[in-house]
């Protein structure tokens, strides 16, 4: 399935900003269930130059600065992405979760070493012992890892209330675990914390969801979890919707947590009060619908 995703972030300031520096993760990755066909990032006022690079986790990062006074900043990203369905796995065919832990801990070989870094605490996911307690029931001894992941995701889906007003990006993850409410980002962080607390590598995936009234998190940027499973690579799982992402999920970037892949961040000189609005639209591209 080919999608056109448009992601527009608008900042409106009460006082002019004289300089701002920004770093964005807005270009979808290629190679992981998907291929990026085309993409463009447009900024108003025009910064003159956008500098792109590949970050530590292999995501494309774009840097730009604006040196003219402005009261509004608009960042639009427009991407054409082909998404392939995920392979359907039999949970019983995946290795026991303790074996995954042991293999990553021994980290022989590139993939396991690479996965190992996603076991440790990170800026937004500093999980205490209560996370291990929370993870416990989903991971009884010997359970295949995918079975555990599905169960954990289901428990988050059923036990946590989706409430955009309950948390902000600054709400600590243990508070989310305690209060059991939040948004996709919080649920992803809780699940990552739970997995890491029992020694399983987990990463944070930032992306989009095909616009669909039945799914939570469409029309805005979305986030889910990816867990390492030797022999099968990384398995995506979306605790906000309790499903395994497939053709409806478009991956932008991944990292240890939100902090590594924040879609838009910036530092502005001046500005006074700021208002932010984010609009995401993901629709199947007509041409590709016809050929599908």
């Amino acid at each position, binding site marked *: 399935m080919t999608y056109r995703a448009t992601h527009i972030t608008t900042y409106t300031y009460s006082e002019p900003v004289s300089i701002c520096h920004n770093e964005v993760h807005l270009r979808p990755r290629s190679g992981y269930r998907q291929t990026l066909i085309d993409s463009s990032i447009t900024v108003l006022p025009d910064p003159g130059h956008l500098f792109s690079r590949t970050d530590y986790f292999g995501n494309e990062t774009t840097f730009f600065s604006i040196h003219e006074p402005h009261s509004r900043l608009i960042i639009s990203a427009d991407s054409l992405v082909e998404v392939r369905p995920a392979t359907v796995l039999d949970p019983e065919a995946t290795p026991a979760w303790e074996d995954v832990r042991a293999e990553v801990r021994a980290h022989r070989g590139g993939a396991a070493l690479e996965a*190992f870094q996603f076991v440790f605490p990170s800026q937004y996911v500093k999980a205490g012992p209560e996370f291990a307690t929370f993870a416990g029931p989903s991971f009884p001894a010997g359970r295949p890892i995918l079975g555990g992941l599905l169960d954990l995701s289901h428990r988050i889906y059923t036990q946590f209330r989706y409430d955009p007003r309950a948390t902000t990006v600054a709400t600590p993850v243990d508070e989310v675990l305690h209060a059991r409410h939040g948004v996709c980002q919080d649920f992803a962080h809780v699940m990552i914390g739970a997995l890491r607390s029992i020694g399983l590598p987990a990463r944070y995936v930032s992306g989009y969801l095909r616009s669909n009234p039945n799914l939570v998190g469409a029309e805005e940027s979305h986030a889910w979890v990816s867990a390492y499973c030797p022999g099968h690579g990384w398995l995506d799982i979306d605790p906000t919707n309790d499903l395994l992402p497939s053709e409806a999920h478009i991956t932008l970037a991944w990292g240890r947590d939100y902090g590594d892949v924040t879609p838009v961040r910036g530092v502005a000189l001046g500005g006074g009060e700021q208002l932010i609005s984010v609009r995401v639209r993901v629709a199947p591209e007509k041409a590709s619908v016809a050929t599908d």
Partner: protein
Amino acid sequence: MQGPNEKGSCVAQGWDYSPNAGYYDELATAQGTTRLHWRALMEALKASGPEDLASRWKEAQRLIRDNGVTYNVYGDPHGTDRPWPLDPVPMVIDPQEWAGIETAVAQRASLLNSILCDLYGPQRLLTEGLLPPELVYANPGFLRSCHGIRVPGDIRLHLYAADLARSPDGQWWVLSDRTQSPSGAGYALENRLVSTRTLPDLFRKTYVRRLANFFLSYRETLMSLAPGHRENPRIVLLTPGPYNETYFEHAFLARYLGYTLVEGGDLTVRDRRVYLKTLGGLLPVDMILRRQDDGFCDPLELRGDSMLGVPGLVEAVRAGTVAVANALGSGAIETAALSPFLPGLSRQILGEELKMPSVANWWCGQEKPLEYVKQNLARLVVKQAFPGTAQEPIFGGRISAAERDELIARIRATPYQFVAQEQVALSTVPVWTEEGLHSRHMVMRVYAVPSGGGYKVMPGGLTRVSSSLDTMVVSVQRGGGSKDTWVLGRGQEKEFSLLKPSSQTLEVSRATFDLPSRVADNLFWLGRYMERVDSTVRLARSALPLLSQETDAGSATGLQAAVGILTALHFVRDAAEAGGPAVVNADLVSMIFDSDRRYSIGRIVHEARRLAWLLRDRISPDAWRILNRLDNDFCTRRPAEPFHLLGATNLLDQSIITLAAFSGLVMDGMTRGQGWRFLDIGRRIERASQLLDVLRHGLGNQVNDESGRLAKLLEIADSSITYRSRYLTTMQSDLVIDLLLCDEANPRSVAFQFARLSEHIAQLPDSGSLSRRSAESRLILSLLSSVQLADMDKLMEADGRGEWAGLLSLMDRLAADIRELSSVLSSSYFSHAIPSQQLRHF
């Protein structure tokens, strides 16, 4: 306590020294004899006697205080500006022993630099299993955004420091490594400057090795590693600011190395290049010597919760337009957890054995060390393995069995976050007190800089001593002290210093255009406050006869004028409203002696000193000494009541002289650059507005020719002699007012200040053109012409109510315009204070 008394013994009258057995003592052998390399020093000290050392030492401490050698103690409201604690007896090291230390430290610096280059590059140490990946992956000091950034010359450690300790068997060990922005090299240098002035003959006789060469290498290295290879790269020293613990050192090193001292707000990034914001515009910066921790250097890509740094800096470094020393991310290896792996890494990377061992560390992330730690917890110190966690070290021997179990459980949960260190019985060294020599534990910090493909070690260092023999904690923050470190050489070295001779005082800027706007702002206010001190002192002095019981009728009107001015400026309360002249007298005494009072001279002096403190890198040691002395003078307690008048007279007379010395230094010693200009603009503006206050509140509204009053105004305005030499006549109000208001030849007149301001403003970078005048040039033009065109006869006419209506309204207008001028200048030149903020994200 008596020891053997033959030659070489360390016992002499007043020099008894009996170190505690059980530790290695730097000075005395176990048999009680003085070690060979200490003998020259000890004999010389003995020969001159303790009284002589005491007096030299008093002098040294005055030097430390006057030079403002300070450190700040965090979390202590009175912690800013503690005098730096230096012990007069240096730590002495034998040349041969030093040669061993030198090669070992140079080797370790090279090794650590290679490790950093690998971790921020190919990471072979991880893929080949030479280093446990936890040390990188779980380490918040490893900055992923800095991975892959190339650095000039593959140098990431531009300055390395190691804390060395000596165990009872005489062996040196590395206690810890400092790789991020090691502090103390500047204090080591300052210690040296003080000790050479305290013990000059001795210093020459014993062939102590010099430090200047080391700093020269440091400067050459930084210059050669600046990207772009410009002939004269602009290097700045980035400080978190005056409240940082070692700010003195930042200012001192900036001055010594000849770099501009900047704070994050002085730098800006444009088109992936770093610029210094100066009065003259933006100037490109090639290298940043940072004294700020990694995480605080860029709020965009590093720690977002701090606004201390320079947004966009990492991207500029990535673009290769600027280099940061030490390289961003070098804090990753500032951990004791690395040290167990160094012997192996040294063999692998350098093909050499590690020359100096680290104090035994057990990183709990591996099975065997973890087991050892559990078994031996009682004799270990447990620390957090990674920087950024503010946990205090835990001494396993000092906690209960239950606490030990709890600690073991915590270690088990995340073993990779803990490291346990063997407690070292640190060696001892004598420190001098008035009562004689005492032994204290010591740690020696040594420094290395890249040079010729390897590292060069400073022949000396910063020796720190514990506050008592009972503690092994050696920290100036915790009340310990410091020593100069004398590495003995084998002959005389050429004398040479990077410091310019101190006769070149108040050098405000190497290149005047390098002046950061923030500094211009502070200089402007320093000028204003110094002038305010001057005029307030004169004003208070003019009112002093109030305190004596005898005043004649003639001087009464003069005193009335002085009190009128003091009342209008809130220094004293109105006698009529507050209940009689006694209140006025009490207030006058209080404004002179009570520096905690809001309206007092001491308060203004404090403010001036605070501004000078912010400008320590810009102000010559002499000028700083003057301000310190002035501040001290106004902090002393008031004398007993019968001596109020005498004490106040002495204090005020003395301060007038001190202030004259300060302005003399400024006028004679300061380069006529933009810095001087802003300082002088501040002075002129303040003097003009003070004069206007004096005239406005001292003349009284009614037209009068009271000679006592007029004489007093001349006295306050320091123009009595000018008046007498010019007019040789009795007091006449029109002549007095003309002299103080309109006479451009009188340096104490309002007109003179306006004329100087007009010259200054014409020289400012944004003074505008003839066709388009800037706001400040319009204002000063109008001010100057108002006094030039003033018609004295008309001004002096009495109106219907017998008042000087014209004069008073002119002075009111001038006072308002001069206030406006001050604020216009601020907004044109100092408007750098707009705060940065993070964009909210979603």
